[in-house]
Structures are given as structure tokens and as C-alpha cells.
């Protein structure tokens, strides 16, 4: 197979600031429709020439961003097997729903009576996540996975404090965990205790037993874990942690493997985040916005952040004024906002990223319960099919049936100079986004591959063929790998220099 993917846009696109010419503008301000007012004293004003906004025409502006979009890689262009990120296709119907004027033009300060439709969407989404997760209650506030983790661990800490168990300050994290788990623990001010994995890729039970005592706040566990493996002794793990009075946090990053098949709340997880931008197909990457809804079992539900949308009978809660008194008569139920009794408080302004929640709601309603289960079945099938193709090309971390992803090692014994990074960069020339690399840390030269359910067999075969071809190149012409990518808008980036001397802001 030859790399046929050509250069989409040659040369670097200048920054918008570099296109700026004084006096150009892309917008015409409307006539003033409010009374003119005096400016505050100059000492309170920002210096006008310090504002530094770019000045460009509308056409230059449009071209600039269209060109940037052409330089970008996206799931709508090609395969994106970025392990643990679940880069599935984002159905366009989600976008249509999010753009409906009735949703798009609501304001978070509106009286709840005027946004019953929005609240219904949130309530039904809460209920669907509650059902699929096996939890007692769900909050939609957190705006990302790590934000959900922070919420969950704050709730765990609050639960112990509420019971007077102030000494529970340690969080156990397996060495296969996402880096956000120890980071979350540190953010909450708790201590990280790392436990190793065993040869089968499960959490090491003996090591876990050794650290279980009454100083444990809880365990943070991803299942399936970042090796794409189901924790085979999950029941024993749960028993150990709960046995010493700890709680179990579920990192929902890999929930795409379990949807509609196993309910985390029933597996023993006490609190878990759902990455709506992974599992439930809302846009992902580019910095967000994400959504990290959190579900909790009965004993932790009172600590959830508020407000949460409840549906109550009018006679119980007293419905507020309706525009039309007759309409008020008819409204037997009413969506309203409730903050749980022992809530850790708000973790986000207003109601979370509502337009993202709306997309997740649309996805779930379009698929239905059976469709969601089928998503997970296909995600697992695709990953195992692709693994069966890749295992003859690169070594696989563990010889087990995988869930929604697997980890290959970018190691070619006959070409010892070739590393995972070289393989990843060369894949760009073949028209594929590289897999997650050098993670999880416990696999040398890791290439973490997650195809997701939305890819066809032909795409998976083409990806395997590219890897096979790259392996050949490594044996015959390794320089082509070391120098890759050759066809991307920019060549191999100096990531060491970028990390040592970061330039974070444009300056003239």
C-alpha cells in the first residue's frame, strides 16, 4: 500500500494577528439604540492600543478559518483510533437538535416555568443515565471527565466527613489509571497510593489488600481499564475496598464497552462520571466543551452537586404562575430544580453545558436502549477484530479477549531504532490519526488503539494494512519512519523544545 493521502493545504497558515491591517473590519455595528453615556475616568480604562485585537476583513476572516479547518484532522475526515478517547462519529442529527431555536435562544436566567422543555430534556437525560449506570441519582453539572472525577472524590470525602471519619485521606489508584485520577486526588487534597497491576493486567489483589485500612477514602477504578481489559476479579476488589470502609469511584472513560450490558452501580461502583463527549457522541477535542455527568448510589446521592432537575406533582410543590390560569389548572406536573440535602455545592455555573447535554439526549433517544447496547457490542467486536489483524504485525500487551480497545507495543525487534512515536507519525502519511502513544505507562512503547463501533470492516482492514506496510518500511528503510510525517502540513514537531521553551502567546 502506498501513501496516497496528499497534502491538503501546503505551507503554514499565518496567525490571525499576522493578517491584521489597521482599520479593516469584518463587522458593521448597528446604530446606537441606547442613550449615550460618559466613559469612566481614564484611570479606569484599559489603554486602547493594549487591546491588540486583530483587524481583518470578513472575507479574510472566513478564508483564514476555512484554511485552518482544512489543516485540521477530524473524525469527519478519517479514522481516529485514539485509545481511551472514544473518538466515535458525532451524528449530525445531534447538531440539528442543538440548533433548534427553542433551545438555542433560551437563557439560563429565565424563570423555570418558561423553560420546562429544557428541564424535561435534562430530567430525561438524568433518568436515562441513572438507568444505564444503575445509580440512585445523577447530576449533569460537571463539564468534563476530570471535572466529574473532582466532583465524585469531593463527594466521597464529604461522605466520610459527614460520618466523622476525618482520617480517611488516602485514595488508591492502580498504575494503569488515567493521569487525571492522581491529579484529581491531589486537587481534593488527598494522598495518592499507587497499586501495581498483575501479569494478566488486573489490579494486583495482594498489593491492594496490603493498603486497605481505615485511612482509605476510596479507590479510583477504570473498568475496563486502560489496557482495554475487564477487571476479572472486580467482585473481590469491591469487597476489599468496601470491607475497609472505603468507597469506589468509577472512571467512566471506558464506559463505551459496557453500555446496556453491565450497570456500574450494580458492579459495586459508588459514584462514577459519564463522559458524554466520549460514550454519548457529543463533540470532542479542541478544548471542549465536554460534559461529565456524575451518577451516585443511594448513600452518596445526598452529596451530589445541585441543582438537579426533579419532576413533581403540582399539588406537592405548588406550581408557579402560568401565563394563562387555565393552563396552570392543566399542569399536573412541574419540572423544578432541587439541591440535594448535603450537597457539596455547585461545581459549575447554571446547569452544565446544556447544548452538549442536548446532543447526548438526542443520541440516546435516537438509539434507544437496544441500540445503545448494540453500540457497546460493536465497539468490543471492532476492537477485537482489529486486534486479530494487528497481532501479527506488532506485539499486544496482554493475550486476553479485549473490550473496546487494546494496547500494542511499537516494538519491531528487527528494527530496534524504530519506536512507537515513529510508527505513530508514519501513520499520518497513510491518512490515519495516530493512536494514543506512550500510555498507559506500564506498557513499553504503548500504542493504544480504540476503533469505536462506528468504523466499517474496510476501514479497520485499511488501518491494519497501513501498519503492515509501515512494519515493512521499518525493516527496509527506517529513515522514512524517523522523518515522518512527510505529507502533513507540518513535519515532525520538536516536542522537547516546545515543552522546554513554550511560547504561549503571540507577540508582534
Amino acid at each position, binding site marked *: 500500500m502506498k501513501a496516497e493521502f496528499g497534502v491538503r493545504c501546503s505551507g503554514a497558515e499565518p496567525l490571525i494577528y499576522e493578517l491584521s491591517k489597521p482599520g479593516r473590519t469584518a463587522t458593521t455595528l448597528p446604530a446606537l439604540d441606547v442613550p449615550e453615556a460618559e466613559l469612566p475616568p481614564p484611570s479606569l480604562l484599559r489603554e486602547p492600543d493594549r487591546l491588540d485585537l486583530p483587524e481583518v476583513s470578513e472575507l479574510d476572516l472566513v478564508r483564514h478559518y476555512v484554511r485552518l479547518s482544512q489543516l485540521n484532522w477530524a473524525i469527519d475526515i478519517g479514522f481516529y483510533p485514539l485509545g481511551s478517547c472514544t473518538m466515535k462519529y458525532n451524528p449530525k442529527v445531534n447538531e440539528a437538535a442543538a440548533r433548534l431555536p427553542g433551545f438555542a435562544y433560551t437563557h439560563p436566567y429565565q424563570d423555570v416555568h418558561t423553560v420546562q422543555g429544557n428541564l424535561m430534556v435534562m430530567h430525561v437525560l438524568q433518568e436515562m443515565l441513572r438507568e444505564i449506570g444503575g445509580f440512585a441519582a445523577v447530576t449533569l453539572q460537571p463539564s468534563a471527565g476530570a471535572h466529574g472525577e473532582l466532583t465524585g472524590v469531593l463527594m466521597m470525602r464529604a461522605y466520610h466527613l459527614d460520618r466523622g471519619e476525618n482520617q480517611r485521606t488516602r485514595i488508591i489508584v492502580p498504575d494503569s489509571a488515567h*493521569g487525571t485520577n492522581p491529579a484529581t486526588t491531589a486537587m481534593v487534597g488527598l494522598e495518592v497510593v499507587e497499586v501495581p497491576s498483575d501479569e494478566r493486567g488486573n489490579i494486583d489483589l495482594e498489593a491492594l489488600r496490603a493498603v486497605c485500612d481505615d485511612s482509605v477514602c476510596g479507590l479510583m477504578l477504570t473498568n475496563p481499564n486502560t489496557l482495554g481489559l475487564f477487571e476479572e476479579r472486580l467482585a473481590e476488589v469491591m469487597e476489599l475496598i468496601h470491607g475497609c470502609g472505603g468507597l469506589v469511584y468509577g472512571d467512566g472513560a471506558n464506559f463505551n464497552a459496557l453500555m446496556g450490558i453491565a450497570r456500574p452501580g450494580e458492579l459495586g461502583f459508588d459514584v462514577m462520571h459519564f463522559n458524554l463527549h466520549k460514550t454519548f457522541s457529543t463533540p470532542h477535542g479542541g478544548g471542549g466543551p465536554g460534559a461529565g455527568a456524575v451518577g451516585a448510589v443511594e448513600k452518596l446521592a445526598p452529596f451530589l452537586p445541585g441543582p438537579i432537575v426533579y419532576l413533581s406533582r403540582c399539588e406537592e410543590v405548588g406550581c408557579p404562575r402560568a401565563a394563562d390560569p387555565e393552563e396552570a389548572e392543566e399542569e399536573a406536573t412541574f419540572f423544578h430544580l432541587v439541591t440535594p440535602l448535603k450537597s457539596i455545592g455547585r461545581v459549575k455555573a447554571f446547569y452544565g453545558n446544556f447544548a452538549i447535554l442536548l446532543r447526548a439526549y438526542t443520541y440516546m433517544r435516537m438509539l434507544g436502549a437496544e441500540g445503545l447496547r448494540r453500540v457497546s457490542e460493536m465497539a468490543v467486536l471492532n476492537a477485537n477484530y482489529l486486534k486479530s489483524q494487528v497481532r501479527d504485525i506488532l506485539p499486544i500487551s496482554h493475550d486476553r479477549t479485549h473490550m473496546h480497545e487494546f494496547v500494542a507495543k511499537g516494538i519491531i525487534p528487527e528494527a530496534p531504532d524504530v519506536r512507537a512515536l515513529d510508527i505513530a507519525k508514519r501513520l499520518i502519511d497513510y491518512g490515519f490519526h495516530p493512536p494514543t502513544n*506512550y*500510555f498507559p*505507562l506500564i506498557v513499553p512503547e504503548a500504542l493504544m488503539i480504540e476503533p469505536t463501533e462506528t468504523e466499517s470492516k474496510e476501514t479497520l482492514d485499511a488501518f491494519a494494512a497501513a501498519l503492515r506496510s509501515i512494519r515493512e518500511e521499518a525493516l527496509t528503510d527506517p529513515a522514512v519512519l524517523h522523518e515522518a510525517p512527510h505529507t502533513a502540513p507540518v513535519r515532525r514537531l520538536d*516536542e*522537547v523544545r516546545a*515543552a*522546554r521553551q513554550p511560547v504561549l502567546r503571540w507577540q508582534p
Partner: protein
Amino acid sequence: MKTDPSCRYSTEHEWLRVEGEEGVIGITDYAQDQLSDVVYVELPEVGETFQRGQVFATVESVKAASDVYMPVSGRILEINEALEDSPEWVNQDPYGKAWFVRIAILDPSEVDDLMDAPAYEAFIEGLH
């Protein structure tokens, strides 16, 4: 992988060079090779005390952030401030310019638990 015969070694790939009642600590050539290009080093405050096995520093490479553990218990007497501005020394000169901290050794008997250079070489050989 290079070792320095004047150092003792931990299983977590730190080296300790004993100088009287004091010790100098860094990470090994094997450790820097595993980390790849180091881009950031975070050192403790002078005066802090750490028990053996406690995390006293963090090393960040383009691949990962890793904790650095105390090979023996000690009080920090001096830190290599220049290393924070030149993290690449960890890759270039792990046993020399890239020392991390100088400590007062609290329990000299702990030094005996560390490996000498040949034992450490055998240890990393066993990891492959």
C-alpha cells in the same frame, strides 16, 4: 547503561553518593533513558525532611511525569537550583551536573540496604 562506582542505587533508579554524614541524590542513566527527554524537574524546599521511599521530587519528560523517591531518609540541605532551568542535564550528565539534592543522612544503616554499581547493573539487566 552507565553506572557510577562511587554511588549506591535504589530499585526505583535513584543513586546516592555518600559524602561523610551527607549524601547527594540523583536519578540513574537507566532512569533518564526510560524517561526520554526531560523537560521539567521539580525539587523540594531546603529544610524539608523525607522518610525513605517518600516522594521528594518530580521529573517530567515528553512522555510522562514521574515521582522521584528518597533512597534513604534525610533532611534537604541543598537543592540543585540550576537543574530547574536546565532539565536536559538529567539526560546529558545524570551522575554529575544533574544531581537533585544534598541531604543530611538520618539513618546511616539505610545506606547498606542500597545496591552497589554491579548489583544495580544486574538488577536492570533482570528488568529486560
